[in-house]
């Protein structure tokens, strides 16, 4: 990546609150015009990192560059960033128009310009004519839009969003996700989006940084994070992953062979960098890449088990299969459109789980 492409650059950023290290030596770049998500469980440091970008917290060590300029020590009111707060922080004593126009006063615009910009912003969030509404007359979703308009109307270089959809109900949240994505494409401003909802991060983002305990575990595109997680922690945080532990014994023609004890010999995609032969590895396979059948299939990885329970999701079902020697139940996703398996017959039955070696990967840590 060329330096000119990046709008935000973090260099060894750490932040401690007393003895608690919230952000621990984080370095990465965010590209211009990108929809970038910080994903992780609560307390992983993602919000602290966002607040460091916004200027509400200052890093204990390290450097933060926005558009090539170090912003360490620059207060929030002088930064080219704007933020959509988790609580939306709509000013309760101002109406919608005054909320949106709040940040324009500093820009020294003419009266006409100011009115035009507020009008455009209201169009953008699909609330034209709402200028006179009082803050308390707005619904949750409308407040979210006003907060968005208020931040965007200043035309920031980077828009920071702190779990902006967390307070909305599921249906509204899905609508807003779609709108947010379209909005970002239309205006082309870099979005940095904090969420603990992996599905939200996967659907919205160009790239995602998965965080845990103040560190970034992996930064990649959604598909790459899902298909090729770099560690067990990432694999288990994004979607669900079945893991079979064993010893790596050989690697030939792009396939690694693993002696997985009670599970027999398993093979998986061998990707560089390959761990040393003889080391302990996990063969990782996603639930939807497992097939469930009555007999083993030659040429594929096969494990025998028995169905414990079924979780029905409408379009698909998850079978949870107990496999001798495995600590946890193995999850198998089954598309109900192609259902060959009757649930009444499934539970308690001995079954074979099979998968092609190419759909499994090796994980070391």
């Amino acid at each position, binding site marked *: 990546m060329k330096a000119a492409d990046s709008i935000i650059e973090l260099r060894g950023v750490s932040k401690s609150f007393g003895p608690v290290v919230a952000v621990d030596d984080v370095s990465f770049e965010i590209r211009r015009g990108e929809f970038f998500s910080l994903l992780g469980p609560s307390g992983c440091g993602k919000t602290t990192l966002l607040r460091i970008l*916004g*200027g*509400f917290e200052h890093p204990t060590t390290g450097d933060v560059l926005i558009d090539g300029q170090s912003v360490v020590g620059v*207060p*929030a*009111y*002088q930064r080219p*960033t*704007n*933020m959509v*707060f*988790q*609580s*939306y*922080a*709509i*000013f*309760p*004593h101002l109406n919608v128009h005054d909320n949106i126009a*709040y*940040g324009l*006063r*500093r*820009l020294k615009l003419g009266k006409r310009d100011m009115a035009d910009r507020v009008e455009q912003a209201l169009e953008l969030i699909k609330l034209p004519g709402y200028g006179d509404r009082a*803050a*308390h007359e*707005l*619904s*949750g979703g409308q*407040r979210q839009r006003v907060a968005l308009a*208020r*931040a965007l109307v*200043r035309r920031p270089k980077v828009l920071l969003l702190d779990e902006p959809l967390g*307070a909305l109900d599921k249906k509204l949240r899905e609508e807003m996700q779609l709108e947010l994505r379209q909005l970002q494409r239309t205006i082309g401003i870099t979005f940095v989006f904090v969420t603990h909802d992996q599905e939200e991060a996967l659907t919205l983002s160009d790239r995602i940084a998965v965080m845990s305990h103040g560190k970034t575990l992996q930064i990649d595109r959604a598909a790459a994070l899902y298909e090729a997680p770099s560690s067990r922690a990432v694999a288990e945080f994004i979607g669900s992953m079945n893991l079979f532990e064993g010893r790596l014994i050989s690697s030939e023609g792009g396939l690694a062979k693993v002696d997985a004890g009670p599970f027999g010999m398993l093979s998986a995609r061998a990707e560089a960098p390959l761990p040393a032969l003889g080391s302990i590895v996990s063969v990782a396979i996603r639930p939807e890449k497992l097939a469930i059948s009555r007999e083993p299939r030659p040429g594929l990885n096969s494990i025998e088990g028995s169905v414990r329970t079924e979780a029905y999701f409408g379009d698909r079902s998850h079978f949870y299969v107990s496999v001798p020697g495995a600590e946890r139940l193995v999850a198998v996703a089954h598309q109900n459109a192609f259902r060959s398996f009757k649930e009444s017959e499934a539970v308690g039955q001995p079954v074979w789980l099979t998968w092609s070696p190419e759909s499994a990967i090796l994980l070391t840590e």
Partner: protein
Amino acid sequence: MRFRLILPLYALLFLIFLYGPVLLMPVFSFNDNMFTTFPLKAFTFKHYAGLAYNSGMINALHNSLRVGFSVSIASTIVGLLAAIALTRYSLPGRAPITGMIMLPLVVPSVILGVALLVILRQVLDVELTLWTVGVGHLLLCVPFSMLVLVSRLEGFDRSLEEASADLGENQWMTFWRITFPLVLPGIIASLLMSFTISFDEFVLAFFLSGTEPTLPVYLFSQLRFPQRLPSTMALGSLILFVSALVIVISEILRQRGFEAAKPLRTAS
């Protein structure tokens, strides 16, 4: 079952005990008699009318108003600054500082009065004027102002001020555009409350007022003359009425403030 009768009766007796004597004062103030005894003779406004010509009283009222207005403004400013320091910054020694500010509430006013008198006269050698009364009253009013304003400042979302900073306003402008309007009901409540406290206060004013009496001090001095008792009653009734009115208004504003400070999210 018997409690059903006893409890309301107890409540009623308690209220009579509490407010009976106070309510007798207005009753006697309208009675056309020099002596405050039953039976009442005739209804009259003359005690009230007499107040208008009582220059000593007018003078004392004037003093009290001046002290009251100044103290309420000073106390609100000091209380606001203290409340901001306590709620917006991680202040080392927050608890002891709060305790020190609240202390005048529990120190008996007589002791406070004597102590202030000794310091002002013996140590600092200051003349006793309305200024010294004001200083004493400030000590009593700041705890109240601070309490009202702390609860107001704690009541609203911190991210409102952060949002203002995010939208380009520095701390000073954020205070005037966000904090001040949202704290305004608390500020008004603090002004009214401090004014009432100062206006009614007797003990400190008695010690510190020198030759310029405030209204309560003047009132007390009039008790020596039995013939002036009815007009004192009239004056007392007026003070009672105005104080009650001011307190009710400040309480309404405070309540309304709490309504406005509630998080917006619950409104939908």
